[in-house]
């Protein structure tokens, strides 16, 4: 003997349920195929349901006056194994299903005329999506598909351009002009002086006046906030609004950092900046202080500690602040970090950075020293947990063993998310970083 469950089928009008009016059988009854089991009232009709099996009734699911949902058990039977009446019933039962008919159709929700409504379900392997790289903040550049394609090919971010066409539409000329311009700029920046580092001359270059003309005296000019400017504004505001910032300062004797970068520059022929040494050292420290390399998720009530060390580099560009990313810094030598850092910064400035090069950082470094700043209080690159600001490296008077000495120093400023780290956590990490940068042995142990 085997147990068979007969579920309430959709009785032709796709209704959701039916009310039991009267049972025509009782537990223990032996019934033959098609013997009336029960009279039910659907929203449309009074219907007698015949038995799909020959066998003994063991359970009636529900009482007169009760409501049974379509697809729910109505009657359980005990039937002879191998008894033929409903071939499909056998198959269904064997498959652990219940009602005849189920196996032939997708699972359905009841509605009307016929079998009922199929569920809005996704398949086992539903397509996964990735948010678009652009326009995710409701940005609207106006350009024809042709111009968009051109921009994509030339690596031009349309949102950074002002359209010269009708109603401000971006034209092919706009893109081509922008491409020529950034091409020239990119060439200039590949010179050795292009990358951020520390000589006074470079600082002068970096602080050259911006090309925005001041409004006429006594007047005001309204500049529409759009494109990258708008994105920056949104991101900064969000970070400041959501993240409780704390900034801590540590001054580092950069003697050995400078020595190392000079040595590596000579050795490799690649210009290695002090910044790249700091970036590489930071990755090392993050591994030992995981909360530095993390993000806070208030909705989930979680802190996510990142197992990757992708360092974002805040870079000034014609269009505003960009944050290109050097990926997997912990797995790379300093020289390589220096090379990649220069590449991504250049690509970002030229507007030809790939989405991968502009997203995915787990912690960010901003080198305000390049603009002459001693120290600052950087705003965290939301949703990261910390940002490290590096001040200008310059010879300063420091007291060593009671003696005033001249040493190159720089001040590190770490802004951190107080929801993730406490001050003690942050300072422990910064002390660790300071010691690493000041120790010729530990610096020397970093992959070159």
């Amino acid at each position, binding site marked *: 003997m085997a147990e068979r469950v*007969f*579920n309430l*089928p*959709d*009785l*032709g*009008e796709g209704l959701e349920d039916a009310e039991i009016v009267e049972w025509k059988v009782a537990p223990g009854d032996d019934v033959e195929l*098609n013997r009336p089991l029960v009279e039910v009232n659907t929203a*449309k*009709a*009074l*219907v*007698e*349901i*015949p038995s*799909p099996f020959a066998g003994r009734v063991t359970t009636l699911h529900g009482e007169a006056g009760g409501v049974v949902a379509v697809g729910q058990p109505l009657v359980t039977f005990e039937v002879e194994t191998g008894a*033929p*009446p*409903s*071939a*499909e*019933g056998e*198959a*269904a039962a064997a498959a652990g299903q219940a*009602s*005849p*008919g*189920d*196996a*032939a*159709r*997708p*699972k359905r929700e009841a509605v009307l*005329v*016929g*079998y009922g409504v199929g569920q809005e379900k996704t*398949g*086992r*392997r539903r397509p996964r999506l990735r948010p678009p790289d652009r326009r995710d903040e409701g940005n609207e550049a106006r350009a024809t598909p042709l111009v968009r394609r051109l921009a994509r090919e030339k690596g031009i971010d349309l949102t950074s351009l002002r359209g010269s066409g009708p109603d401000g539409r971006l034209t092919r000329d706009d893109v081509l002009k922008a491409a020529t311009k950034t091409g020239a700029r990119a060439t200039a920046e590949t010179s050795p002086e292009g990358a951020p580092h520390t000589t006074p001359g470079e600082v002068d270059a970096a602080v050259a006046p911006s090309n925005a003309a001041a409004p006429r005296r006594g007047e005001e000019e309204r500049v529409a906030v759009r494109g990258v400017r708008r994105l920056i504004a949104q991101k900064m505001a969000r970070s400041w609004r959501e993240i409780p910032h704390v900034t801590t300062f540590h001054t580092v004797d950069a003697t050995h950092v400078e020595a190392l970068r000079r040595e590596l520059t000579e050795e490799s022929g690649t210009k290695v900046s002090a910044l790249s040494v700091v970036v590489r050292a930071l990755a090392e420290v993050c591994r030992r202080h995981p909360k530095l390399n993390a993000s806070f998720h208030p909705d989930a009530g979680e802190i996510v500690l990142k197992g990757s060390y992708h360092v974002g580099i805040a870079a000034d560009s014609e269009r505003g602040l960009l944050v290109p990313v050097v990926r997997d810094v912990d797995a790379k030598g300093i020289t390589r970090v220096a090379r990649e850092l220069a590449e991504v910064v250049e690509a970002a400035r030229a507007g030809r950075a790939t989405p991968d090069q502009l997203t995915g950082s787990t912690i960010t470094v901003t080198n305000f020293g390049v603009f002459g700043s001693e120290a600052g209080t950087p705003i965290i690159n939301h949703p990261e947990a910390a940002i490290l600001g590096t001040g200008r490296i310059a010879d300063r008077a420091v007291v060593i063993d009671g003696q005033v000495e001249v040493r190159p120093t720089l001040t590190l400023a770490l802004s951190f998310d107080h929801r993730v780290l406490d001050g003690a956590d942050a300072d422990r990490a910064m002390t660790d970083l300071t010691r690493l940068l000041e120790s010729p042995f530990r610096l020397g142990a970093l992959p070159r």
Partner: protein
Amino acid sequence: MERAEDQTIVRILDPEGRVVDPEARQALDLKEEDLRSLYRFMALSRQVDLECTALQRQGELAVYPPLIGQEAAQVGSAFALGEEDFVFPSYREVGVAVVRDIDLVEYMHFHRGTRHGGIDDPVGKRFGEISVPVSSQTLHAVGWAMGAQKDGRNACAIVYFGDGATSQGDFHEACNFAGVFRTPVVFFCQNNAWAISVPLSKQTAAPIWRKAEAYGFPGVRVDGNDVLASYAVTREALDRARTERTPTLIEAVTYRMGPHSTADDRTRYQPTEEIDRWQELDPLVRFRAFLQSEGMVDPEFLDRVERDAKDLAASVRAGIAGAPPRDIREMFGWMWGDIPAHLARQRDEVAALMEAEGPEDGDA
């Protein structure tokens, strides 16, 4: 039933199975064996019909329109057809399908929702696809008959439809064409008194059979629960079509003992007394009484018929219950002789999706 009292109605057997028109009875070209066959077909039709209603209640068919009560009209008329004659059914003609030896499992795939139409090779089988748009098939019958006639074939078309269908323009246009072109077609209307919930009195203000007059050919009213009379008038109409190129409209007065379809709730409109009254006029009971009174059947025969009927019903159940869906990819090939590019692209899309999804219903 007032219509049953109507003097115009053709009837050979009364409700008790007694011969009321011995002359007509004598004129029948039916052997004893044929008479038993008529009964057998009616019994098979009823059993299959009951089985299909049950299958729908058990979730095996999407919807099913029962024919119960109309067995005599369907079997009697279909039995009169020659092999070359073409049947154009509506959607309630399982009795006709039984007589014409149509594969009933194939037919029920229509009601299971596994395929449309219901008939493979309808032209070869002389049995058109199931036609749901009411009355649309009347014109197809006229057209087929015109074509057969142009070929000089001695074949007729018979089209089945209900009382409700006589309200549609298509019916009148079909009659008019048949009258004008003198096509060999028999319009067989099963007046079962109800078009879903609308009674005949609200469907037409004049008797159906008399509408033929307006189109220039004979109309006949027959007791549709009398299988012999249904046979006789159809046979006569077919002869007239073959020999005189004259169409006929037959109104077979019968009764829909079941709901319009399994989706219907007839208790909302069909008076119980009316159903009870017609219960007394059951066509099978009537004809069995006739056969018994004539001594043509014995209990052994009746047992055998009952067994055959149950076997046929069981074979329909075995064939249709749990039958898997047809593959939609195959259906793209049913559209045209070739598959144009835009359609091939769609077929490939669905194929890719199905392959990505894996076997039917395997997901939790």
